[in-house]
């Protein structure tokens, strides 16, 4: 006998609330799916995690040792020496944080490329974009969902460790001296991380939008950074022209890091505006390619 299931399939007649931040479900589901891959997580984040722990202990140790120094009341050299020691410690901690942040950029690149390479090309390969765009979802929401997914994995390798160390420094420094004297380091760590993560996520998504498969996209992302780095080093060394090193986004961001943290860069000494230009051009160029490819998604048969 025929039966109906109208109790389950009643037509929806209510008013659906317009979904702000429609990218959010894409982001959360993307993170949930990608974090199920435990082995890559372990491999890619083991070194940043160990480095973060080691540096945290180092920072903590510096400030803890500082607290042991009793102020000498007999005046003169004792107090001066203690203040000098504190200043030295602060400078050392700050320098360590800066170097740590700058070195972590490579791990951010690895993580974002590994987890982000399949975000667009796999959707296109299996046709999943047809399911997305049959929903009330704009291409901007779709892009944001994917971009933030890639950026999250990059941020976990550069931004989170940097901020953790700043946090340790803040808590372990006597009388919050780190925050009071070097509080801008926290903001600069944040800014540096955001710049690098934005660049890496943009290039990763760009490669993903162009490549037919995840593996090719990953190779494209690494190839882009490695090839430009090699080219920049060869040209810069042969022509003995430091600004040619700005062709490499890796070196340009390193330079930007030094500029942000007001630290002298000894090598290769790229002019800051050239470094900014490289980062800006690569980021904007990648995003334009992604936008163009997303627009072309509609003609995929």
């Amino acid at each position, binding site marked *: 006998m025929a039966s109906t299931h109208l109790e389950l399939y009643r037509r929806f007649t209510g008013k659906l609330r317009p979904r702000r931040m429609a990218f959010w479900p894409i982001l959360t589901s993307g993170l949930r*799916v990608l974090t199920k891959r435990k082995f890559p997580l372990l491999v890619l984040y083991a070194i940043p995690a160990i480095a973060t722990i080691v540096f945290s202990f180092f920072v903590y140790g510096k400030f803890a040792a500082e607290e042991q120094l009793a102020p000498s009341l007999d005046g003169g050299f004792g107090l001066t020496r203690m203040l000098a020691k504190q200043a030295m410690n602060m400078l050392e901690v700050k320098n360590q944080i800066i170097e740590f942040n700058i070195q972590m950029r490579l791990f951010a690149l690895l993580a974002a490329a590994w987890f982000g390479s399949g975000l667009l090309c796999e959707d296109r390969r299996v046709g999943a974009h047809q399911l997305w765009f049959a929903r009330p979802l704009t291409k901007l929401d779709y892009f944001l969902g994917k971009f933030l997914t890639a950026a999250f994995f990059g941020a976990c390798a550069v931004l989170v460790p940097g901020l953790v160390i700043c946090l340790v420094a803040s808590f372990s420094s006597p009388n919050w001296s780190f925050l009071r004297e070097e509080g801008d380091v926290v903001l600069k760590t944040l800014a540096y991380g955001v710049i690098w993560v934005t660049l890496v996520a943009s290039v990763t998504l760009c490669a993903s939008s162009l490549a037919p498969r995840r593996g090719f996209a990953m190779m494209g992302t690494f190839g882009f950074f490695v090839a430009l780095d090699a080219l920049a080093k060869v040209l810069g060394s042969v022509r003995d022209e430091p600004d040619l090193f700005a062709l490499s986004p890796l070196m340009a961001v390193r330079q930007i890091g030094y500029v942000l943290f007001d630290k002298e860069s000894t090598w290769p000494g790229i002019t800051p505006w050239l470094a900014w230009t490289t980062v800006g051009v690569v980021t904007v160029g990648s995003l334009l390619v992604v936008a163009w490819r997303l627009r072309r998604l509609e003609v995929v*048969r």
Partner: protein
Amino acid sequence: MSVLAAHELGRWYGQVVGLSDLSVEVEPGLTGLIGPNGAGKSTLLKLIAGEIRPSRGSVRVLGLDPFANKELHRRIGFCPQQDALYDDMTGLALVRLLVRLSGFCRREAGERARDALERVGLGEALDRRVGGYSKGMRQRVKLAQSIAHGPELLVLDEPLTGLDPIARRDVIRLLRELGEGGMSVLLSSHVLHEVQSVTDSILLLHRGRLLAQGTVGEVRELLSQHPRRVEIDARRARDLAQALIGNPDVLSVALERAEDEGAGDRLIARVKSAAEFFPFLTTTAATGGFGITSLESPDDDLESVFDYLVP
């Protein structure tokens, strides 16, 4: 209001014509979109689902322009032909995610996703990874996501592909029930009996053009240049043939001897117009007492119509 109104609709991909100069109106209900591979079925369905833009002409779905139309996307469900699923997600998580994008809160999206998956027969497997599903199960997940948000119009591109016979029967029953429940369904297939098992109302496409529209019988009736074959089993088939041969609608008659001695012969008539012929046959049979035991018109099905229309 018609669910679909297309006017001189065309869509091409570079040099390849996907759809050409299609003008059609489709009323609410179940409608089958049939045609061989490359006929333009998927292109038309993607235009209806707002996934692609027309190259020329216009299309209105439920009275709205479908391309990137958020309001319309809440009211339609689309099941694409391609696999389109994420292997790493569970069936429930995937459908819930897509329902959430339609504007439902997480809790209600979860309930609707669960209901829809149970409805398509995946109640036992909804917490399993899609990667472990068979092709038929994947097809049903796609179907579930298209109905879970309770759309007014369901657009299904080859929804029965890859299903085993039992699942196919269940899905066909589901589609009929959805139709009875007031949902309009537009489904495509190149397998004629699949479409005919769901609906009698068809759109026939070939090489990007609309060849025919209407019920199978109506379309068949329009093909007057193709005589209809009528097979009649009768105890006095020879006398019946004699009675029919005088009718101007009957082009020819032939007799086939039955293998069983006791049974009557089979009379095969080729007629110009079924509309004219069947009333005449009824009258003749009632007055003549020819002992008609069965009557069928084998080329009255979709396949014959298709064979006539698609060279």
